[in-house]
């Protein structure tokens, strides 16, 4: 599969409500409806005219239950991407685009909601999707542990230097410290604290792991033609791929290319369908559930290799405005906050509108790389120019 991506669909509005974990003022539906209405107001669009919804990661908020709050005139598209983790986040935009391009829906919201009182700890929910007695018998209960096994293989067998994880974490925290909406706003990462933090599962210490937050994020997608008449500058979806290559999946840790993040086939299709290369990407929102998986994601997408990863993954290279590839410019899952990654998709849009608190000058393209290491992964490219 390597056809060109020929949908003409844009993100027209975004909405994000984020709270400290277990501190949301309403249950999930209350938070989600606000995020969706925020996204519609951002676009200048009547929420009642939203006729499609796509989620991922086992979101519990079935769209039909939102209709009374939103005044939905007709629900035409209601679906979500398989998988318990964040691997499906970018693929959700492909599903929304498919609905719009084929006329099955005309205004589709991609969303993710997380309120601990309703859904419990995210880490537990993700793992429950994948748990079985083979994993449990080895004491593998939390996503940190299988990711740690892959990370150990990357560091010890493939000899990726441990220092690159620190460079990546520093970049996320650098941006988070400069984003007033981030949980780490105003707080630089203390390197000594990073290096001596308590172990979670080797090789991960505390700050190698993403946070969890309550909240909801929503992005409104419509056709390019319709987006041009709305309030904000359209951000085009120029390519998206989801899935898994042969030899990757839910395989009891028997995956080929085990230390990777699973993007080999997805990245190949993404580059083929857009005609772009890593050199054409101006910034990236790189889903980092854990530090090493962010590194593996960069390698999988072709930004660097096991051999030259330390040259590429340097703090100076990863920060706005001057880095070669600024990543996680709102702070990412580590430092902005973590509502199963939806904040990263919203930052991709804000960055390309010039609304980021860590702007990348003249950025025209932004990669959204979904949850790495998940059985099903996905990636998308957004642009403020139509790329054909």
């Amino acid at each position, binding site marked *: 599969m390597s056809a060109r991506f020929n949908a003409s669909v844009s993100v027209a509005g975004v909405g994000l409500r984020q709270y400290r974990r277990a501190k949301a003022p309403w249950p999930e539906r209350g938070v989600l409806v606000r995020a969706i209405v925020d996204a519609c107001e951002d676009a200048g669009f009547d929420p009642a005219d939203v006729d499609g919804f796509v989620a991922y990661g086992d979101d519990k908020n079935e769209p039909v239950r939102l209709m009374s709050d939103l005044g939905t005139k007709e629900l035409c598209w209601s679906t979500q991407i398989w998988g318990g983790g964040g691997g499906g986040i970018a693929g959700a935009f492909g599903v929304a685009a498919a609905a719009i391009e084929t006329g099955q829906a005309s205004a589709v919201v991609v969303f993710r909601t997380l309120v601990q009182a309703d859904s419990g700890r995210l880490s537990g929910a993700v793992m429950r999707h994948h748990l079985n007695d083979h994993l449990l018998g080895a*004491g593998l209960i939390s996503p940190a542990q299988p990711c740690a096994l892959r990370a150990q293989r990357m560091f010890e067998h493939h000899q990726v230097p441990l220092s690159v994880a620190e460079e990546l974490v520093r970049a996320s925290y650098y941006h988070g410290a400069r984003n007033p909406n981030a949980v780490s706003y105003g707080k630089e990462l203390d390197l000594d604290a990073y290096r001596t933090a308590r172990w979670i599962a080797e090789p991960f210490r505390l700050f190698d792991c993403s946070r969890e937050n309550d909240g909801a994020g929503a992005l409104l997608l419509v056709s390019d033609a319709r987006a041009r008449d709305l309030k904000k500058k359209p951000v085009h979806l120029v390519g998206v791929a989801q899935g898994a290559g042969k030899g990757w999946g839910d395989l009891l840790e028997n995956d080929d290319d085990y230390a990777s993040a699973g993007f080999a086939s997805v990245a190949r299709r993404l580059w083929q369908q857009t005609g772009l290369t890593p050199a054409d990407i101006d910034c990236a929102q790189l889903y980092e559930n854990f530090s090493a998986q962010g590194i593996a994601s960069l390698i999988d997408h072709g930004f660097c290799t096991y051999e030259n990863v330390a040259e590429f993954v340097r703090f100076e290279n990863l920060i706005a405005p001057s880095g070669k590839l600024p990543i996680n410019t709102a702070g990412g899952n580590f430092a902005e906050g973590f509502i199963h990654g939806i904040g990263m998709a919203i930052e991709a849009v804000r960055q390309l509108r010039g609304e980021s608190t860590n702007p990348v000058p003249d950025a025209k393209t932004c990669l959204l790389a979904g949850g790495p290491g998940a059985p099903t992964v996905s990636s998308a490219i957004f642009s403020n120019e139509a790329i054909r």
Partner: protein
Amino acid sequence: MSANDIIEPRHTVGADGPYWQALAEGRLELPRCEGCNRWHWPAVFRCGECGSWDHRWHTVATEGTIFSWTRTWHPFDGSEGIGVPFISLIVELPQAGGRRLLGLLEGDDRNLRIGAPVRGRIDATEIWGDRIPSLRWTILDGSAA
């Protein structure tokens, strides 16, 4: 637990049912396709390579090498019966086409490294109060060489 304790299999009807049944009886068995001789793990109902529905379960020695490892320090909910820290292993089995199994390390961990030879035995892991049949691996002496 003592080796004489019987661990009731919790699963018997899935593609991996014979694995759990054998483990409960004190043997490690893994499936191999009768059509193309490929070792399959996880177990499959149908061989996606040759289309065969016939698999034979073979007794496999619990011997292999460490493919990767992690030492868990955070007391994740459910792991109370193991107790932190503990070391989870992925073990590559040369006698089963390089397929990998999971398990816990027991004994001396001074020679813990990818590639270290290990030998296993069958025990049970307590998770959320359930006893789950599983493998315990020991690093073989002299593996640091």
